[in-house]
């Protein structure tokens, strides 16, 4: 945990983890799970919409779409029998359909991707590769209007403790190069750019693509901040980066893409940083769908009642409510915290210390915003106090002196304000 420095006259500089700053770590291979769990966004499909049923068999590398007419699906990373389909709720009330697959001992590879990979097209990306490690959103990236002109491949990592993209630039340069070539050929994007932290510049240049460097400081690593600082095009409120013609993909996803096409197999492994209770880190590679408890067991990390397990980085990750939660395509890190390390939120009033206002990269009036949001004035917050300018970095909560869960309030406010607006539009 990065503590407040003794002298704090300027706002904090949070340096993202660097791979050379980490102690020599070997990649720990997590054994394939006995039961793999796959989460698909969206509520449980009705019986007549279900495309997969309990007892069905799936093969490794097969794309499974649980519901008819819904694009969301998953690539099975094990061969086995579907043992359960149920409904679950994620953070901020996001509904998920969870599909459990009991794995056999031997993998049997499905060849549907291999066949498509021989003559790849744009639809291969959209249909098949949305679930590669890094969870790239090819759909909105490549089919958007206006078309994306510049595609930024992120060799930097967004969150503080995450290092997967940096490892890709460092260790998987060949796959990254292949992925970028495939991407350029198929997408027709005019400019492909590799963005890396300054210390990886030389290695990145060896790949032979256009390279840009940046200081790996949080939250400058977030796409909206890159738009502002690198492209000098702040994303207007209510728009996405793609609307300005710039798309972002993680180096991990592009390298997985390259590997997928060269090997003819859909990628099933996910690399992640596991941060143990004592702060030390382990690099691990597990199949997507492996329950977190299996990962922790393989690494001999014990959790007890009241501990916290986070899927993702320290600033933007999601909580795992139980050990059954699976490793997903975007689980870049697993952060394990002892219950004594958890700094609880409080229900105190804002004291107006101004730390959040100083630290906010979007220059939002967070001190006023929190007063509005605490009183459920979501619409007013969106209208008068720039609620939708938020880049979702979480720094406001990180520095809050009275430990108000400001970031949570902001996310709730955004969700509620959007819901109110869409309800109003529906009734207009």
């Amino acid at each position, binding site marked *: 945990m990065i503590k407040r420095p003794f002298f*704090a*006259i300027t706002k904090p500089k949070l340096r993202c983890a660097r791979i050379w700053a980490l102690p020599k770590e070997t990649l720990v291979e997590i054994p394939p799970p006995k039961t793999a769990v796959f989460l698909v966004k969206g509520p449980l499909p009705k019986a007549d919409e279900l495309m997969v049923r309990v007892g069905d068999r799936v093969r490794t590398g097969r794309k499974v779409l649980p519901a008819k007419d819904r694009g969301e699906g998953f690539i099975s990373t094990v061969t086995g029998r579907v043992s359960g389909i149920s409904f679950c709720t994620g953070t901020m009330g996001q509904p998920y359909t969870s599909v459990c697959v009991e794995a056999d001992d031997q993998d049997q590879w499905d060849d549907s991707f291999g066949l498509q990979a021989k003559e790849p097209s744009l639809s291969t990306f959209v249909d098949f590769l949305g679930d590669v490690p890094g969870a790239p959103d090819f759909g909105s990236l490549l089919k958007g209007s206006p078309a994306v002109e510049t595609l930024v491949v992120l060799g930097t990592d967004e969150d503080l403790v995450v290092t997967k993209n940096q490892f890709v630039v460092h260790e998987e340069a060949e796959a990254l190069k292949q992925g970028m070539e495939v991407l350029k050929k198929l997408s027709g994007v005019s400019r492909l750019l590799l963005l890396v932290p300054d210390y990886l510049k030389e290695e990145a240049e060896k790949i032979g693509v256009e390279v840009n460097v940046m200081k790996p400081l949080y939250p400058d690593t977030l796409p909206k901040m890159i738009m502002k600082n690198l492209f000098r095009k702040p994303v207007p409120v209510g728009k996405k980066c793609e609307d300005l013609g710039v798309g972002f993909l993680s180096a991990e996803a592009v390298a997985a893409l390259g590997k997928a096409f060269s090997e003819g197999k859909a990628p099933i492994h996910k690399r992640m940083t596991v941060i143990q209770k004592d702060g030390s880190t382990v690099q691990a590679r597990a199949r997507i769908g492996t329950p977190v408890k299996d990962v922790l067991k393989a690494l001999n990390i014990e959790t007890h009642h009241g501990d916290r397990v986070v899927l993702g980085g320290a*600033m933007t990750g999601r*909580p795992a409510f139980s050990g059954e939660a699976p490793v997903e395509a975007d689980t870049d890190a697993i952060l394990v915290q002892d219950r004594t390390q*958890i700094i609880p939120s409080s229900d105190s009033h804002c004291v*107006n210390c101004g730390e959040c206002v100083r630290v906010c990269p979007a220059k939002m009036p967070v001190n006023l915003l929190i007063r509005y949001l605490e009183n459920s004035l979501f619409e007013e917050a969106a209208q008068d106090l720039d609620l939708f300018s938020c880049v979702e970095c*979480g720094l406001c909560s990180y520095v809050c002196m*009275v430990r108000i869960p400001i*970031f949570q309030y902001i996310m709730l406010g955004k969700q509620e304000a959007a819901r109110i607006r869409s309800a109003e539009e529906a009734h207009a």
Partner: protein
Amino acid sequence: MLSQKLLVGSHAPYWHNGIGIRDKSAHTILAALPAVVMGIYQFGVPALGVMALSISCAMVWELILNRVMKRSVTLGDGDAAGIGLVFGMMLPATAPWWVVVLGTAVAITVGKWIYGGLGCNPLNPALVAIATLIISYKGIMDFDLAYLNYDFSFPAPDPLKAVKAFGPDAAARYSLTGLLMGQQVGGVGTVFGLGLILGGLYLMARGLIRWELSLSYLVGLVAAAYIFNLSNPEKYAGPWFHLLAGYTLLGAFFLITEYSSSPVNPIPMILYGAGAGVMTILIRNVGGFTDGVVFAILLFNVANPLLDRIRPRALGRS
């Protein structure tokens, strides 16, 4: 089910920089100590009595108000102790016990809790109490009367009062070094300029107070005093005298920086600080009160919500 292992689920972020409101209070108290210790050394045991009573009374009132308002006990955050400390620092060492009890009651009740407690007060609680005493009881805050029985090695009249009555010639009796080193009468914790400056620099470097407020206040005050002095040197004392006399330094580092009643955006902070500095000199030189710090800061406390509307454009707004 109850024996099942459950994990704590909460929203991001999962790290915190570790600072809490208790740290802020503790460091503010630490930063004020040099000035308080010097005051106790200078004015003797009565000063210690005033400080001890003020801090403890403020905490007792806080506890009572916690109970009355049916809120959880908030003594641990140190805010009440901080208010008691700053209030005590402004009192003369000879202040009678009931003044301390009454003052802290006003500070904690009227200054803080009727608005909802920590963070909700529109005015600085310690200043509300001092202003109430100044207006309600003539003579209590008169430092000439308070130290009548003391025998000092330095000029005993209250410098600001002397200048107000006899013009800048009276200021010549006070050396600037003397004022800096605490050779003046005044509140227990307000006379030792150097101690207050050191405390203020410490808080600024730690990022616990907003330096823009303190510096703009001092710049505003010095500039206004300089202009007055330039316009009529025979009537108005110089800026450095005003910088070191009275509550100025306490105001700059411990009063104007109170979180809840001051703005947070850059331009408002500078306007707020400079405005309060100018207003302090206006009250001292033109107004009816001896020291302008109390009412100048209170006045700008009221202007704070309006000033803080001037804010930078948020990301993605045209």
